[in-house]
């Protein structure tokens, strides 16, 4: 039976979060309660684990680092079919960049139990660095393949996968244990079911802080982050728009005129 880890991030609902703007006066983000959802690419990572569980049998542990409300996301993952959830939550973890995040997650994964494969979404919808998966792999001393779009052979401990590459893809052979970051092409996540939500009642979610992980606060959160945000600057709009007026046809004509003057038509 496989031991699978899926790293999941609770992110502000992308459709809402994408509209946030830096306040020109305070030079910071306005406080807004945006509902948290599972990072969309992490749903694909979880689905990959669930498909393996169906095929070969597996124990799936969810790891997520975030403030207490992120626990709802972990519960949702259990309702989708994962077996156990571990929420890494601690004020000391706040302000972590990709490095500190990966370090904290890796320490937790290491502490938990031996693992065969770690699935991560290739990037988060907020942040979107793509660094956490590979950095977790480094801290766990495991190999990593990023942007996997298809698992071609998943038997035994030598797998073959297809990963996105420039203008195409690469075929990669890898030896478990390994970290795999996934793209949305990999699979189609199954929806939440009522019975899954019911079954999640009996599944365990643990909360771990830095003491439980036995790591000093200097190595996590803002303190443990080699990078820091120093400034947020709102950007002024840079163009004076002329709105084209009139009926539909008049607007079409005017636009064609503009395009023609520009030498496009």
């Amino acid at each position: 039976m496989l031991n699978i880890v899926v790293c999941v991030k609770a992110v502000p609902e992308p459709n809402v979060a994408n509209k946030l703007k830096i306040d020109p006066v305070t030079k910071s983000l306005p406080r807004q309660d945006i509902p948290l959802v599972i990072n969309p690419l992490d749903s694909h990572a979880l689905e990959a684990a669930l498909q393996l569980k169906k095929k070969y049998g597996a124990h799936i542990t969810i790891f997520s680092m975030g403030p207490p409300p992120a626990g709802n996301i972990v519960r949702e993952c259990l309702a989708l079919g994962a077996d156990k959830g571990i929420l890494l939550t601690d004020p000391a973890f706040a302000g972590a960049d990709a490095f500190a995040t990966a370090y904290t997650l890796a320490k937790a994964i290491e502490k938990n139990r031996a693992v065969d494969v770690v699935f991560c979404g290739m990037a988060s919808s907020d942040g979107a660095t793509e660094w956490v998966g590979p950095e977790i792999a480094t801290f766990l001393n495991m190999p990593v393949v990023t942007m996997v779009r298809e698992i071609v052979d998943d038997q035994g401990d030598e797998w073959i996968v297809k990963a996105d590459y420039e203008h195409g893809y690469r075929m990669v052979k890898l030896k478990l244990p390994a970290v795999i970051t996934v793209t949305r092409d990999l699979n189609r996540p199954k929806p939440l079911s009522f019975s899954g939500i019911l079954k999640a009642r009996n599944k365990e979610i643990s909360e771990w802080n830095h003491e439980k992980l036995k790591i000093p606060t200097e190595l996590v959160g803002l303190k443990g982050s080699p990078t820091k945000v120093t400034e947020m600057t709102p950007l002024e709009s840079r163009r004076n728009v002329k709105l084209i007026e009139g009926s539909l046809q008049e607007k079409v004509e005017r636009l064609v005129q503009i395009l023609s003057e520009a030498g496009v038509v």
Partner: protein
Amino acid sequence: METESAAVFVLAEKMEREIQPVSLQLIGKARQLADELGANVGVVLLGQDLTNDAQKLIAAGADLVLKADSKSLVPYQSELYTEIILKLMVERRPEILLIGSTFMGRELAPLIAARLETGLTAHCIELVIGGEGVLEQRIPAYGGMITIVCPEKRPQMATVANGVFPNPVLNPARSGEVISIEVPRNLPQRIQTIEIIREKLEGVSLETASVIVAGGAGAGDQEGWDQIEELAGILNAGFGSTRPAVDAGWTELETMIGQSGRMVNPDLYIGVGLSGELQHMVGIVGAKIMIAINKDAKSPVFEKVDYGVVEDCRVFVPALVKRLKNTESYAGKVAHVI
């Protein structure tokens, strides 16, 4: 080359017998940063048959080229590359390491950064030497710019996409040092790239297109999307997208223009059914005329363009396409180029 003096390093990439444009752009940028710091520019290149490449890198601004030339380095192998680059970084101790946001770069950069326990910023669109010689790395976010620094750890690492910085003027008369790096043999590898396969080519390359049409969520569905694609076709334009269109499955991630996608440089840009999110708009560098079509008069995109049409693109685009199809019969119509 002295290991004492500060250095700005670039990890260059060669693909299909060509040095990637982003590598040259980063060398040009590194040259500028290095000049400000009073430092040298070093370039690391891994691959095969690299004999003529070092000179090109020097012509772009490198003072030192460290090249590892071996069959075992093609195709890209993450563990082997990581070990070689890591060793060089530990030896050379550069101040800054820049890597192109190619597929290889995006996988290697964090592997190197994690081993060096240093900071890494993704998809920068601006790099500036700030106070005390620290590199200010700027990324677009939340309708503005965020400045990130790596105050203590070294090297300060950043990835940058193709097209953010200009292509440097190549000076073939420049001189520099070229050192051949030994490639470890028989390194146990748990991961191996077996083969790289190229898939379909795109029509009009986004990076070289002079006219670009980009579509967004306003397309509504695949049918609406196809309408916008038809418009791009009639204008012989590059056809790009924003994230919502990719998420909706109407197009591939590769067509996405923006901070974590492709950077483009058209003369004329038409944004159709998109909201002008900064993440997308920063992907458009230096367009002379920008036009937006969006049904929401309050859409932020209208603050960022020269001409705006407030119409549902699902209504406007077919009307425009129909009209343009009639224009084609006006062959010989005089137009002057901007």
